């Protein structure tokens, strides 16, 4: 076995896995068939439950044996169905934090963390354990029983127990599920910090979009045992543009538009609406979708989602404020349908009370307020 303290070397190794796995005992026909290369840093494995995420991690860790394929870290082959290589789990140096954490309930927190360090001398073991307990801010729990600590504390202990062994690959199966947001944010910071100093391939399974954007350098989307999408979080996670014309029915306002700029760090992009004649275009901030600058799109906005102000509004969270002038007002049952010309014509729905208190009338100058996420994007 390799020495635990050995470092992974200068050129950072990739985790490469080609895995085909089907269980004869299961009649649901589930078949895992993926091929992936995971570079050092976070790679998010995203997908619905039952997509095969945990099965894939189990194969990489050697907890289940694939029917076909090959798994390797750099030059080191862990599994090869053709070459009949199957390195035992204990010798793979693949760190794995389970969704259930699996802390040893009969041991203390410190004993749990020390568990993977037996080949070190007693003093080095103690030093390393103390250091990682400090790094994860759980030093005061060291002598507590693993079954008598809270959920957030357990999550930290499970991470510390795996990270202290300096694994060459790290598998994290929803390690932060069931945590409140502040605790989650703190642990994500700890993980990021660890990743900065130990550049090893990390496969991180999650259901949470926030975690994808917080940690993700790359995302793999797994569905029904296959990788269906792969890319940066903004490429993969933003609304897939598969809305069809049928869905346009719900939008009173539909415009052709073109992407002007993308802001992945904010999860938004800027689009301009096509206008007739020589007027300057209307620019809207919209949610991010796949596709770059110049991509033609259609933007749908519900008339009920637009706010109307009679003076330029300030201090708003909404990102789109467009000046315009009321063209017409019409009452339909208990709502008022206003048509507003703001270089394009938009339909806005108001209550009767709003019309009366704002003293709206045709020809009045107004400002339309549209939230970024009220702009629904469709294939152009």
């Amino acid at each position: 076995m390799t020495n635990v303290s050995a470092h992974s070397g200068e050129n950072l190794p990739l985790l490469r896995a080609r895995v085909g796995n089907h269980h004869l005992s299961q009649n649901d026909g589930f078949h895992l068939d993926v091929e992936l290369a995971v570079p050092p840093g976070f790679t998010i494995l995203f997908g619905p439950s039952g997509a095969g995420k945990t099965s894939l991690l189990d194969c990489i860790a050697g907890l289940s044996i694939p029917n076909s394929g090959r798994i390797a870290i750099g030059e080191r082959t862990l599994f090869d169905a053709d070459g009949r290589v199957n390195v035992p789990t204990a010798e793979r140096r693949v760190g794995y934090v389970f969704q259930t954490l699996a802390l040893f309930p009969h041991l203390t927190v410190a004993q749990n963390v020390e568990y993977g360090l037996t080949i070190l001398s007693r003093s080095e073991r103690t030093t390393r354990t103390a250091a990682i307990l400090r790094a994860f801010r759980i030093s005061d729990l060291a002598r507590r029983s693993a079954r008598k600590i809270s959920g957030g504390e357990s999550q930290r202990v499970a991470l510390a127990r795996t990270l202290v062994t300096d694994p060459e690959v790290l598998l994290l199966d929803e390690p932060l599920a069931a945590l409140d947001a502040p605790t989650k944010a703190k642990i994500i910071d700890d993980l990021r910090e660890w990743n900065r100093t130990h550049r090893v391939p990390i496969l991180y399974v999650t259901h949470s979009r926030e975690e994808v954007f917080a940690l993700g350098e790359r995302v793999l989307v797994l569905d029904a045992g296959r990788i269906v999408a792969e890319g940066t979080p903004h490429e993969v996670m933003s609304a897939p543009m598969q809305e069809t014309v049928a869905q346009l029915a719900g939008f009173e306002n539909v415009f052709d538009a073109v992407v002007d700029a993308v802001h992945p760090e904010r999860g938004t992009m800027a689009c301009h609406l096509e206008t007739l004649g020589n007027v300057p275009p209307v620019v809207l901030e919209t949610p991010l979708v796949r596709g770059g600058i110049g991509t033609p799109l259609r933007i749908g906005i519900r008339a009920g989602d637009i706010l109307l102000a009679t003076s330029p509004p300030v201090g708003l969270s909404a990102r789109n404020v467009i000046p315009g002038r009321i063209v017409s007002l019409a009452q339909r049952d208990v709502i008022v349908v206003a048509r507003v010309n703001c270089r394009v014509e938009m339909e806005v729905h108001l209550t009767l009370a709003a019309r009366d208190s704002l003293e709206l009338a045709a020809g009045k100058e107004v400002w339309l307020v549209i939230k970024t996420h009220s702009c629904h994007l469709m294939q152009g």
Partner: protein
Amino acid sequence: MSIDWQTFWLTLQLAVSVSAVLLVLGLPIAYWIAFSGWRWKFLVEAVVALPIVLPPTVLGFYVLVALGPHSPLGRWWIMLTGHSLAFTFTGLVLGSILYSLPFAVQPFAASFASVDRRLIAASATLGASPLRSFFRVIAPLSINGLITGIALTFAHTMGEFGVVLMVGGNIPGVTRTVSIDIYDRVQSSDYAGANTTALLLLVLCFVLLTIVYGLNRRAWAVGPVK
């Protein structure tokens, strides 16, 4: 009305020997039963469980035949040592081990199987060999099953009769156990002696089981709290 302390001492020696051997022998068998994926595993499980339903005389008869000069095993032993295993203390221990096997193996296997598989997997991903996983994770978490198995084996051996009579006969100081002593006394109408001996055995077994189950319950509460 006298108690034959020699038979008590002998019975105790027998029970301790059998428990000790089964603790060592039962662990790997139970481990295999709990974790093997072999499709014909149930055959082995059935063989291990056989002594529960088999009349002790049947088991004792086969053990006697196996130890005697008509079986290869018996002949090999006679060639090696010059005497037969039948009607010796060692022969008695062998017969009792087979007889008590399920009482040790079944509680062991049941408690091994109930250990969360993810804990065993976690141990492996942390670099532990199967042997280390067994001693650091599986066995400590199965402590109740281990205690139960050994207690049942011990008590079961203390009171066994049929196998002892078939394999060991009734040689004072060598193979005469308490239950045979009681049977002898009844045969010779020494009811008072049988009564005292039986009562002593009853009390002994009761005290033993009380201690074991008392400890066992504590084992639930004992954690690594310091």
